[in-house]
């Protein structure tokens, strides 16, 4: 670019779109209230799915319910925030059919940034609220030997978890360019990934660890950081410090995401779309 733009000027297009999306969602108060309520209900029922198991047993995969709350809270909070800001990447097939993507090509911003900032689902804040409450209880009910390192790890885990789930949405979006009617295939890993992330991963067998432990590193969003906070050793003889590797896992997820996106766009420009 010839003229250097200030950061503020660079962000102007994205701010303008997002602010208008947010305004239009709050415009109909009654329906927005209902959306918030059902979004909160989603979070509550997802928690209930785990809670009912603890009605019958006291421990799953070496964790009791209070400890699971910590795993669930971390993973679900991060997922809900990512869903709020990146969830519409799922709509890529609709965008392709409606020609919305062609319109993005005619604007002077990067495509992926345009797609990501083209919408925001404020109603999902309610679900993030459920995750946050679960996390708060998880932190309060457990005996955590708090130190600055623990606080730092908690912050790192939340940020990395959000980034990981965001990356999963982008990965799925990129894959949609190739897969005709493929939404369910990518859902298996995005929403299946969320389901996996809220589980005590110590119950997984080795193939599940390969898929949701490392390739799509869902265990790094809640389970492994929670173990470190609780001072519990990971299963399969994995090292204790693995919980600190959440940022690496996030970087890996985005590597997958950007490769998938890049291939997807190439495929589209190559005429396969």
């Amino acid at each position, binding site marked *: *670019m010839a003229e250097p*733009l200030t950061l503020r*000027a660079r962000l*102007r*297009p994205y*701010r*303008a*779109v997002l602010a*208008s999306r947010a305004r*239009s969602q709050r415009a109909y108060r009654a329906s927005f209230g209902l959306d918030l309520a059902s979004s909160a209900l989603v979070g509550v029922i997802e928690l209930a799915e785990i809670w009912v198991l603890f009605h019958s047993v006291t421990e799953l995969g070496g964790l009791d319910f209070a400890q699971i709350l910590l795993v669930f809270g971390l993973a679900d909070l991060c997922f809900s925030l990512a869903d709020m800001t990146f969830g519409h990447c799922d709509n890529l097939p609709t965008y392709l059919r*409606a*020609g*919305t993507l*062609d*319109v993005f*090509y*005619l*604007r*002077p*911003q*990067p495509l992926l940034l345009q797609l990501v900032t083209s919408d925001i689902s404020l109603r999902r804040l309610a679900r993030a609220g459920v995750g946050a409450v679960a996390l708060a209880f998880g932190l309060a009910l457990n005996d955590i030997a708090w130190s600055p390192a623990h606080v730092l790890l908690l912050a790192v885990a939340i940020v990395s978890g959000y980034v990981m789930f965001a990356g999963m949405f982008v990965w799925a979006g990129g894959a949609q360019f190739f897969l005709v009617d493929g939404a369910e295939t990518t859902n298996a890993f995005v929403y299946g990934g969320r389901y996996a992330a809220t589980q005590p991963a110590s119950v997984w067998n080795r193939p599940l660890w390969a898929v949701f432990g490392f390739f799509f590193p869902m265990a790094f969003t809640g389970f492994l950081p929670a173990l470190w906070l609780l001072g519990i050793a990971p299963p399969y003889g994995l090292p204790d410090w693995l919980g600190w590797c959440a940022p690496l896992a996030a970087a890996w997820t985005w590597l997958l995401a950007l490769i998938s996106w890049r291939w997807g766009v190439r495929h589209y*420009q*190559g*005429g396969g779309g």
Partner: protein
Amino acid sequence: MTTTDAGPIIETNGLTREFRIREGARRRTLVAVDDLTLRIEPGEAVGYIGANGAGKSTTIKMLTGILVPSRGEVTTCGLRPVQDRRRLARQVGVVFGQRSQLWWDLPVRESFRILAAIHDLSATAERDRTDELVERLEMGEFLATPVRQLSLGQRMRAEMAAALLHSPRLVILDEPTIGLDVLSKQRLREFLVAERRTHGTTLLLTTHDMGDVERLCDRILVIDRGRLAYDGDLPGLSRTVGAERVLVVDLAEAVADLTGITGTRHLASEGHGLRQRLAFDAETTTAARVLAAVSERAEVLDLTVEEPDIEDVVRRIYAARR
């Protein structure tokens, strides 16, 4: 801007685009655009016509960087569309008759504000340009209306304004008047003529509407099966294919078929000769002369002149090439 202002605004050289398509188990290659070489200078107004599937949309997608060419070269506004897509976006405006650039649930005014932010217009530039477009396209009455509540005519005016808000040097219009009533078409055409006069904007439009071509374009490109079939002006096109106009007359009484009038060809009679259709070549005679000849034989109650249909013109070109 200095580097991109000079030279042609669109230049292609051997531009080719192939698609591999699957038909059952077999794969075959479809050539959508075939060895297209053309040059459009700044300020021209070009009609790009052809049948459905002739390669028009594919060409537009390559000019704007949405599709990568299989072979050949293309520069738009002096830029390579795919590599320089983001810089090019600041100089090109595209109106798709079929897909919207506006935000469905927002008032028109709000859509313009967002687009101004997207193109990073200054506050003054945004205000001046919006005012100009609102006035010229007569959008004042529906600026506060959400896009989804607009009539088709209003929506197309808003789409036009959205694509031109950043004052692009090149405006590409894909079927801009499709489905519009006569008055709305008229209004859009007048706007485009004025826009071109005041800002020297280059226009490239695809259309099925002969009226668009006649009133807006000074040059016509016809594409057939991906290949350039004609490049020239409208009278030249009519000369090439001998496109005829048709005079339809309603007569006071039934008469015998009106054959043998100089420069005409009798096409059909309806109602035992109460309505008759005569084809004539605009090069050799005029409607007035034909009418005078008809009046000598019967009293004319009403008449219409049918312009050559664009599909018909294209069909004739295609027929001549095969």
